[in-house]
């Protein structure tokens, strides 16, 4: 921190922007990714709760696997894939 302590962000907006940019490739990029991830979290809350979960709590199988387990693991994998996509691509 020593070398950066010489001047403060308050007096130097460019440095502030540069620092924010260093976090994730640009202020806007960083913000939009944050918002997308929050949206994905909300989607996950929706997917893994009543009432959506109740739709799959039925006695049937897909390829021999009970529907509920097939649903949970598929939705879970897709959610992770979406998170990876959001994080790894440019906004």
């Amino acid at each position, binding site marked *: 921190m020593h070398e950066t302590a010489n001047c403060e962000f308050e007096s130097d907006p460019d440095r502030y922007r540069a620092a924010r940019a260093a*976090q994730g490739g640009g202020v806007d990029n960083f913000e939009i990714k944050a918002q997308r*991830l929050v949206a994905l979290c909300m989607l996950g809350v929706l997917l893994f709760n009543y009432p959506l*979960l109740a739709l799959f709590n039925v*006695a049937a199988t897909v390829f021999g696997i*009970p529907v509920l387990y097939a649903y949970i693991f598929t939705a879970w994998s897709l959610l992770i894939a979406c998170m990876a996509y959001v*994080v*790894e691509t440019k906004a």
Partner: protein
Amino acid sequence: MLQGWVIVGTSFAYLGLLFAIAYYADRRADAGRSVIASPYIYSLSLGVYATAWTFYGSVGRAAADGVGFLPIYIGPTLMIALWWVVMRKIIRISKRNRITSLADFIASRYGKSALLGGLVTIIAVVGILPYISLQLKAVSNSFSIVLQYPHIIMPAKVGAMPVLQDTALWVALILAAFTIVFGTRHLDAAEHHEGMVAAIAFESLVKLLAFLAVGVFITFGIYNGFGDVFDRAAAVPKLNAMMTPLEGVAGGYASWMWLTILSMLAIMFLPRQFQVAVIENVDEKHLNKAIWLFPLYMIAINIFVLPIAFGGVLHFPAGSVDADTFVLTLPMAEKQELLALLVFIGGLSAATGMVIVETIALSTMVCNDLLMPILLRQPWLKLNQRKDLTGLLLGIRRGAIVLVLLLGYLYFRLAGEAYALVSIGLISFAAVAQFAPAVFGGIFWKGGTRRGALCGLLAGFGVWLYTLLLPALARSGWLPIGLLEHGPFGIELLNPQQLFGLTRLDHITHAMIWSMIANTGAYVIASLWGVQSADEHRQASLFVDVFKQGGERGEARFWRGTASVPDLYRLLARFVGSASAVSTIDDYTQSKGPQYRENPLQADAEFVHHVEMQLAGAIGAASARIMVASVVKEEALTVDEVREILDEASQVVVYSHRLEQKSRELEAATAELRIANERLTELDRLKDDFISTVTHELRTPLTSIRAFSEILLDDPKIELAQRKNFLGIITKETARLSRLINQVLDLSKIESGAAEWQESSVDMKELVADTVAGMSQLFQEKNVRLDADLPERVPAVTADFDRIVQVLLNLLSNAIKFCDRDHGEVRVALTEHDACLQVAVCDNGPGIGAEDHAAIFDKFRQGGDTLTGKPQGTGLGLHISRHIVERFGGKIWAESRPGQGACFYFTLPIAATPAPAQGGNT
């Protein structure tokens, strides 16, 4: 045959390998080539979340209710999506304030309160004990089971065994020794344990591979894939119920939801998770990959849980084998020696990973946030006069590790048998979830106070003790079981598992609901109705606004007082060792420049702050504060002063933003002014040119008028014919003069924008035909042939009729002037071209040189040689025509080659929506 010595030998070989990895990583770190500076290692180290509970307990839980184990991994997946915002902020705050543990974080946020740090430490230690006991139980159980190979015999109840013959005790002691060697070999000012992180990442790999191996073996070796397992399970009534477990065996959706919330909080606030995710984080950017890699790890380690659970239930007679041990007992029942050994090592790696990180995190807390602040305040210990305290610090930490593990063992003896593995773990989850209001409130809400955090934590922890720990002890027979059946003193409303009559919930959901209400409520209410001290106010602002501040100097503004450099040096040396202290201070003064060399004994605020931060890295924020306060004469800042400094800073920001904006506006205005000024200068020059040209043009006819008038005046005897001739010239020149003046007036009107334009829909065919007809007399007089080539009908254009006639007249009269003297020929054509009407006027005169094509439209420019030839017009006609045509969106230009005549063209855009009535007007 798996003999005792094989198992013990393999276990120690494995621990030895871990140690070798840690040692190698530490050596690499010292050499500056860190092995853990990778997002993959960071993600794997987060896998310390999967403990023996995951390894053995998930299957146990799945065998009981099918889905109950899943929220524990889905919750973190949801939470980690928010890490981009939340965890990044916590990491940034922790790095800036050199936070050493979760307790340090909370204490530091609420005014570096030693009391709060101590409370958090106690909650963490008490809360985590069941969790540690779970690891001991898992390792000792799996050891006893695998020792009986090939027979499958469940271990005896712990209570039946003398303490010294209890495997769990030996496991606890060996793990304590191992952790001490691992985590407290030396004191690191930054609290980084690179070796440990590398070993943990390796352990994550081992347990994942072991679990996948056994999963593949059971699913595809014993059974024929997933479908087969589920198929056979569906035939068993007990397992069939688990195909649709929600609402049935697993309890309602409320249970599911609260388990999810609980594990969302656990992934952030378990001390070991905080340790690997925040304290051991070497680069914020590693978060990005971890956000999807870590959930991927969790899904991978859970894929085979259900097949193993169902396979176990199908394989063993009901009740003969504990479902928590299926992972181990299934390969044993199939006589897979090596696989059983691999599973045992996998379980060992899951348990050791958890115990190592957890106890290191807890020992740091116990040392920095519980014991040091107390010890440093004891005058009789004279700690302030001890030269070197590093030994003491290490001693305390080592003692704390042993103590935590022995307490974990004690809990195991007292209550370990009452619950399955998962339930024990959930009790710990519920304890650390109590940190959530204080931490989330702390980083997003400046209003949270120390008193609020204290009240919230005490209330939440109190409810946890009453609704979870008490029943656990009662079930183990240490308290009368009647407590759970009828409530204390027979008061039903106070029943610990049905508090205030809240029934029909499982005990974890029940405890979470009441403790979160109590915790959050107390935190918010006490914060809103309390006042913040100066320290709290400052820390609140530093935490919440961490992304808005600069480097360390930001914090130094809050300090006022005097201190001497030697005092600070001695202080630092006592805690981090003298060599380290010298290099720290030297580095700092050198980076600061000459003012320190001039005045080497007086430390300024920034210097004091720097030392405090270094110290905080070693002994925690609260202790560091106490120590620094002991050697400097500090003037306490009042709340108002802190507020003033903060306001000042924010005002400066606002002011500088405003200034920046003002200067941008000014720059823009200056640029506009410069352009306007250039235009003005240009116009001024043009005006001068114009006046001199006009006066010149006026003088020419005036001169001839005057000359002929004087002749007539002087000589009355001039012949009549001569006189007539002279008078004719005078009349012609006067006409030219008035035409010139009219055109100058016209031009000045057009140029100044004062001209009146009467726009209407104009039929160009009619206009051209009329104009040509009006001019035909003149053409005949001059003996010039005029051809007009007009189409049947053309679309209308929007223009001023009279002005366009003026343009056409001008072109026609020019054509007459310049066409061939003897066989004059002028052709007028009207055509339609891409949304424009084009009028062409061509003559067969001498033509215009290419260099003049553009210039003839300038003022007072005429075709031909103006010096020798007689001027034939005013030189303003084409210029005015150009103005008119451009006014209506058209273009005017000339095409010619000398000797082949000249063509003048002008275009007018066709009206966008011509009315049909006007089109048929002709």
